[in-house]
């Protein structure tokens, strides 16, 4: 890892006690996000990590105001540059999206409009937010595609999404997201739908882009390998709540929450014994306890004690991290975890 470049600091986004409840007539309410708090500083790369269904994506959609308007209850705060994103009127929020906050989604083939050429989709953002004329926007679009590493951008602009390769589509999506030099970029599993080799390229591209422009990046992923290579701060989510939050080095060196320990232990290791079954966390995400009754992870936890179900575990703050566990793994776990990048 190279030296961390000096960046202008300052709080960019502060999400506190965010909760999202999906209400459906005739069905039980679903608490997708249940009191998530985290912060993002300017230029910082923050990871939101967790299994499918832990509320990562819903958190991102709630912050950007992209959840459907009906049947959803959003509570809490998301302060961005002095305003609360959650209570902002839709029009202002729409103006922010794409200009100040941009998003990159998981699957580029379904995130691009199949019947509209790439060029139109890129210029759309430029004319919308930067008030460019169509002519200027076209030039800028070619420049953008060039910057994200798409060869022959002029020709590509005229092509349709299905004519591009998977990696190139994701590059185009990223080009659209960074078109207005947003202050915050949210990447929701940006590499999940791509080949492993392309994944590395896309991550490298994202890293370069945010470093050069001092854009803050929220990486949403279930892949701890991605997190290890990119993020400054990592928030581990479980059942809609942040269970552990730490600086990358500290988290990988000594995970405290048993869930984090389990996640790190689940990574296949090159120096592990061959043929040995891979470690998995027992149970599934569906075996949860409602947070108000106790720690949601209890049913799957190997370190559970009686206190776990006595009520919601409090947040424990230490100098290098915060975690939500009554019986944490305080000694560095042996045999599990990835060595911190050194």
């Amino acid at each position: 890892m190279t030296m961390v470049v000096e960046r202008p600091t300052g709080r960019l986004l502060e999400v506190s006690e965010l909760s999202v409840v999906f209400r459906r007539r005739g069905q039980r309410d679903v608490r997708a996000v249940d009191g998530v708090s985290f912060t993002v500083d300017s230029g910082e790369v923050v990871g939101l990590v967790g299994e499918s269904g832990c509320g990562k994506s819903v958190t991102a959609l709630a912050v950007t105001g992209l959840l459907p308007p009906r049947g959803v209850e959003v509570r809490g705060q998301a302060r961005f540059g002095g305003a609360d994103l959650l209570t902002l009127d839709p029009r202002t929020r729409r103006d922010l999206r794409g200009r100040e906050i941009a998003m990159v989604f998981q699957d580029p083939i379904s995130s691009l409009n199949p019947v509209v050429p790439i060029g139109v989709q890129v210029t759309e953002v430029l004319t919308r937010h930067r008030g460019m004329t169509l002519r200027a926007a076209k030039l800028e679009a070619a420049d953008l595609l060039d910057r994200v590493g798409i060869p022959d951008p002029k020709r590509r602009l005229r092509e349709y999404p299905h004519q591009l390769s998977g990696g190139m589509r994701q590059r185009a999506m990223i080009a659209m997201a960074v078109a207005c030099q947003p202050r915050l970029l949210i990447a929701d599993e940006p590499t999940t739908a791509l080949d492993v080799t392309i994944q590395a390229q896309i991550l490298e591209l994202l890293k370069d882009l945010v470093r050069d422009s001092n854009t803050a990046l929220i990486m949403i992923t279930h892949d701890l390998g991605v997190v290890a290579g990119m993020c400054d701060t990592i928030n581990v989510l479980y059942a809609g709540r942040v269970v552990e939050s730490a600086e990358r080095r500290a988290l990988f060196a000594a995970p405290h929450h048993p869930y984090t320990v389990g996640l790190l232990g689940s990574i296949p290791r090159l120096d592990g014994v061959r043929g040995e079954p891979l470690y998995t966390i027992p149970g599934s995400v569906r075996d949860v306890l409602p947070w108000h009754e106790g720690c949601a992870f209890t049913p799957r936890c190997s370190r559970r004690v009686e206190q776990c179900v006595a009520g919601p575990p409090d947040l424990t703050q230490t100098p290098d991290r915060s975690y939500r566990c009554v019986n944490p793994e305080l000694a560095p776990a042996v045999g599990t975890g990835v060595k911190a990048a050194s």
Partner: protein
Amino acid sequence: MATQSPQRPLPPGPVGQWRGERIDRLAELAATPPDERGESLTRETLRRLRRSPMAIVGAVVVLMFVVIALVGPYVLPYPPTATVGLDQIRPGQIPGPSAEHWLGLDHLGRDEFSRMLFGARQTLLVGVVATLFGFSVGALIGGVAGAANSLGSRAGQWLDSVLMRFIDLLLAMPPLLLAFSVAAVLGRSLTAVMIAVGVAATPIFARLLRGSMIAQAHRDYVLAASALGVRRNRVVLGHIFPNSLAPVIVQATLTLATAIIEAAGLSFLGLGNPNTSIPEWGTMLAQAQDQLAVRPALAVYPAVAIIITALGFTLLGESMREALDPKLRR
């Protein structure tokens, strides 16, 4: 995020219980995301159409019909309204096919072959104009309802409900009956026939486009566009709408078939063009009734022409619908 469009399980069998279901099914077909190869929907559909014998037969019939309708009137052996063989007509005797008159004469001594050719143009004209009418009005209502629904506001929801209940009302009536009622109100004219048949086709287009738009509104690219701050109007018009058109275009082909039959039906029942000397297949069929005992072939020609043409459009439309169906792919 891997938000898939909410795919309702499709009802078993080729035809749903209710016409509305069948329409909704078509709307969902085109909303299925493209497969991994990333081939465009249009291209894959065309590729599969070329391999289907049904589609080829349908296309050939439709093509022949269109050529006849366009070129026919210029190569007529006789003017369609001229009573060229009046002297050959005797009571109870109408001459059949001969070298001069390939399909014989009708009861007024007019050349049947010329009338058939000319009638093709009338039929095509009514069919196309009526379908276009139904398409435009239906797409307008369905488009507004679909857009209002996709915007998600309470007012939009309300507007969508009001428009769709009106469409359901039209849909509940048998199309031919609807066309008859409209034609009866408008009076006898060619325009009235076109409008009447068009009105009967309107609800299908409206419901189909709305369903298709709602299905598209849940696709990822719509979310992605919103995430970049693209305005709602632009999302609906520039992203959702163009992606919703495929099933509507397929329906237009199927509607052409029913429009031709319904137009002929209206003419047959005397609600068509008041100038009955201008040949139209439905009118010809009605006139042939009186001569059924003398020369039944006069009824057979227009009847067969109507059946073949409608069949051609149906074959083409149905195979297009099948080509769009992801369950039948590969």
